[in-house]
């Protein structure tokens, strides 16, 4: 995942990777969602948000697939 900030806001964000449909969909929706959001806002996102965003019934074992992109994003934010 790569992200470009302008001032404090996300200007551009891209992800690259192979994964299951859940993680890919989650990454795609998440990157759409976070555009123009501030770092503070991004840090507040949690798994509950992701589950709501996806809006489908995820089995217990697939929540980690769904949350994977958010974890990547949070890891990335630590570097800024």
């Amino acid at each position, binding site marked *: 995942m790569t992200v470009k900030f302008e001032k404090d806001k996300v200007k551009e964000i891209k992800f690259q990777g*192979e*994964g*299951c*449909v*859940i993680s890919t969909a989650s990454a795609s929706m998440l990157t759409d969602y976070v555009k123009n959001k501030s770092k503070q806002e991004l840090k507040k996102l949690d798994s509950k948000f992701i589950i709501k965003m996806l809006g489908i019934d995820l*089995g217990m074992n*697939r929540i980690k697939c769904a949350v994977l992109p958010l974890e990547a994003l949070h890891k990335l934010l630590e570097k800024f």
Partner: protein
Amino acid sequence: MLNRNLIQKQFPIFQHQSNLVYLDSTATSLKPKIVIDKIKEYYEEYSANVFRGIYPMSEKATIEFEETRSIVSKFINANKSEEIIFTRNTTESLNLLAYSLGRKIVETDDEIVTTIMEHHSNFVPWQVLASEVGATFKIIDIDDEGYLDLGLEKVKNQKLKVLEQIITKKTKILTLTYVSNVLGTINPVKEIIKEAKKINPEIIVIVDAAQAVPHLKIDVQDLGADFIVFSSHKMLGPTGVGVLWGKEKILQEMYPFMYGGDMIDEVYIDRSTYKNPPHKFEAGTPAIGETIAFKEAINFLDKIGMGNIREHEKKITDFAINRLIDTFGQSIKIYGPKNIEDRGGIISFSFAKFHPHDIAQILADEGICVRAGHHCAMPLHTCLNVPATVRASFYIYNDERDVEKLVEGLKKVKEILK
């Protein structure tokens, strides 16, 4: 072929989960009614601790518990039942060995040899031990078909190593799986042990038989290993019970594993003495009811006959491989040996570009239970150059009908994910 309907009748789960297509016995097997009833019998009729009470109920529990030990011992043709140690599972048996044996005999600059196809439980404990004591951790590779790269056959290419180059006089421990839980490969364990002991007569050989004892007739004396380990829950028995079989003499020399009740002989302020094996390694109250019921699982397997079980699994596996390839051609990639004689009832595969989690999910919606992931064998998947695979595995309650369901399920996967 075994009669699937007759066998399924003896597994209550099929009454609770209608149309269950259970293809994950490699992870854990289903349990027949006699095993479940035996657990109930213990809890309802004589649920006392073992080795402690003088009263009849405790004696009954102890007799039942020890009877399992002797039945396990006969099942694998051990010399005596004192060589059977109960643990929680294969993982604990292997960790016990790394701790009580490994830390006793492996020193700086020694070698520990294992293979790339090991389950993490037979990989990580040795990796950690080697790094702690400064020993060399050596790994036997596999060839393209999923056989161990032993150089026992003629050298085909540069990559082939010869066992003699891997095992040396410094190799204290060789530990390897009998049957790969991913590739299904049945390793020529007996031949490997013979070769290894020729190179280094002092070597200790440990065999992870978690995927072997449930499916093949095992005779530990014929095999020539020093230790074998396996789990009750993969062979129709309860969870919480593992087996470690080892040669009495080595067991006596090993360190205890855990200290506490039941393993102690005498305790003074400044020192303690320990019981003889097996009790030396069985500290604390064990899984009593589960261990007692484990013998019913063995009796059940014995009644069907290990030879019949192997034949049954060979037939389904052969059928399944052919059906999958006939139906999906190039888009399905099945890992492991093509020769059914060298393969257990395990089929791991990749399917087009579909992610294993997605495949397993869609199959789950069809009532088909398969496993997706690296199956606790990450080094092997790295070697195969895939992050994950789908695994279908067979046991006595499966037959061709389950394979047909799998094929139908995969057609659906293709439809949905294309």
